[in-house]
C-alpha cells in the first residue's frame, strides 16, 4: 500500500515536471534588421519571424517575441532574461550560437542615385571619392586597397548618419555592413539612395541562444527546418 502511494506520487511528480517543461515559455529577443525583421511593421509580418515560427511551433512550447535595442539585446541574453536572440553577427566568444547561420550579410556601398556604381570590383572608380564608413565596422579588402578617401564616422548611430550625409551629398558614398537594411523595396530610403554590394565578402548572421539546453532544443528543430527549406530561400520566395 505504502509502495503504491510512493509510486503514484512519483509518477504524478514526473508528470507535473514534464508538463512544466513542455509548457515553458521561450523568450525570443529580436533586434530590428530590415528587411528580415522590421520594427516599423507588425512583427508577425517579418519574414524571419514567420520562418522562426515554423521552427518553433513543432517544439510544443509556448514562445514570446521581445523587441530589443541592439546594444541591450546581448546583455539580456547573457543575463538569461531571454532564451534566444536573433539575428546577430558573432561579435563575442561568450555568446553561443547555432552552428549554421540563419543568413548572410553582404557589405556594400550606398550612393546618391545619380552617382551609382553598380559593379564594385571596378575599384579604380573609387579614386578620389570621399567614402564614409562606420569606425567600428571592419572594411573589406577591396575598399581598403582602393585609392578612395576613407572617412571614419564615430558613434553608435554612425550607419544612419552616414546614409544621411550621403543623401545630402557630404559623402560620395557610404560603406554599409549590410546595405539591404536601407536599400530594399519597403524602405523610405529606397527613394534616395541606391546600394551595390561587395559580393564574395559576406559574413554569417546567427541565432544566439542563452544556454546548452535551449541550444539542443532549438538546433534539432532548426536542422529539421533546414532540411526542408533554408531561411534564405524562404526569404527569396516570400512574394511568390
Amino acid at each position: 500500500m505504502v509502495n503504491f502511494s510512493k509510486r503514484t506520487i512519483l509518477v504524478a511528480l514526473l508528470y507535473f515536471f514534464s508538463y512544466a517543461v513542455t509548457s515553458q515559455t521561450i523568450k525570443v529577443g529580436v533586434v530590428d534588421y530590415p528587411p528580415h525583421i522590421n520594427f516599423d511593421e507588425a512583427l508577425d509580418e517579418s519574414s524571419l519571424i514567420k520562418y522562426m515560427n515554423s521552427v518553433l511551433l513543432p517544439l510544443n512550447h509556448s514562445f514570446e517575441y521581445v523587441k530589443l535595442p541592439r546594444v541591450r539585446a546581448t546583455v539580456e541574453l547573457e543575463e538569461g532574461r531571454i532564451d534566444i536572440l536573433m539575428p546577430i553577427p558573432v561579435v563575442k566568444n561568450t555568446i553561443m550560437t547555432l552552428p549554421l547561420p540563419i543568413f548572410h550579410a553582404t557589405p556594400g556601398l550606398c550612393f546618391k542615385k545619380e552617382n551609382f556604381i553598380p559593379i564594385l570590383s571596378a575599384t579604380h572608380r573609387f579614386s578620389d571619392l570621399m567614402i564614409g564608413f562606420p569606425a567600428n565596422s571592419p572594411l573589406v579588402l577591396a575598399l581598403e586597397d582602393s585609392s578612395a578617401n576613407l572617412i571614419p564616422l564615430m558613434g553608435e548611430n554612425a550607419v544612419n548618419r552616414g546614409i544621411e550625409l550621403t543623401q545630402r551629398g557630404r559623402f560620395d558614398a557610404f560603406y554599409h555592413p549590410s546595405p539591404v537594411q536601407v536599400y530594399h523595396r519597403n524602405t523610405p530610403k529606397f527613394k534616395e539612395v541606391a546600394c551595390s554590394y561587395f559580393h564574395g565578402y559576406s559574413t554569417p548572421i546567427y541565432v544566439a541562444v542563452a544556454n546548452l539546453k535551449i541550444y539542443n532544443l532549438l538546433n534539432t528543430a532548426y536542422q529539421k527546418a533546414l532540411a526542408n527549406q533554408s531561411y534564405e530561400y524562404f526569404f527569396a520566395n516570400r512574394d511568390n
Partner: protein
Amino acid sequence: MLVKNKINSFFRQSFLIICILFACFQSIANENTMKPLINDITKMYMSSMVFIFLNQPLINQKGGDKSSLFGERFLQNIQQTYFAKYNEKFPLEDHLAKRALLQAMVEVMNDNQALIYDDEIGFKGIIPATFAFQLSAKLATKGVGLKIKFTRTQGSIRNKLNSPDKWENSVMLKVIKKPQIYYDENGLLNGKPAIRQFTPLPMAPYCLACHGSPKNNPLNKNRKKSDWTSIDITGFEMENWTMADFGGGVSISIEKSVFR
C-alpha cells in the same frame, strides 16, 4: 565443433567478399554519377548566364512586369533556356548540389530585387559575368562542397576574386592549345578530394561589347570616332580582345564526400 568452425569461417569469408564487392560497386556507381552530375551543373550554370544575357533589356528597363526574373518563374525560364540551348530536358533535381545551385539562383535574383525595380538606375550591372560571380559567392556560403567559378588566365581577370587557382591555370594552358572540356576526378577542393571540370567558353560577339575594342562598345554607337570611349558600360577599360581570343571558361569542383 569442427563443422561449426567451418560454417563460421564460410560466413566470415562470404561477408568479406560481399563487402569487397559492395565497395567495388559503390566506386563504379560513384564514377557513373560524378561525371553526369558535374556536366548537368555546368550546363545549368551556363543556361542561367545565357538567360541573364538575353534579358538585359528587361533587367535594365524602367517599369514593366519583371516577375519572370524571380522565384519559381525564374527557374522555369532557366529550364526553357536550357532546353533551347542543349535540346535536351532539364536535369532532375535529384542531388543536393543541383538543388543548392537552383536555390542560389533564386536567392541571387532576390538579392538584386531592389536594384532591378529601381527605375532611377539605368544600367543595373547584372550581366552574365556578375551574375555568375554572385552565384559562386552565394554557393560558397552554403557549405555543400560545390564551387563554381567563371575564370580566365591570370592577369586578365577584372574581379580578383575570380582569379584562377593552380589547377585552373595549368588546365587553361592546355585548353588554349586544344579547346576541350577537361575533367579530373582526382582533384582537390579546400584540401579535400574532389572532382573538377573546366569547360572552355568560346568568345562570342556579345563578350566583345565589354572586352573588345572601342568599335564594339555600345556606348560609342552614333558617336564620332574622335569621341569614342575605351571604357565599357561596367566602368572597366576594354581589353581589345577579338573573336580569336580565349574566352575563359567555367570551372566546377565538387567534393567527393558529396557523393556518399
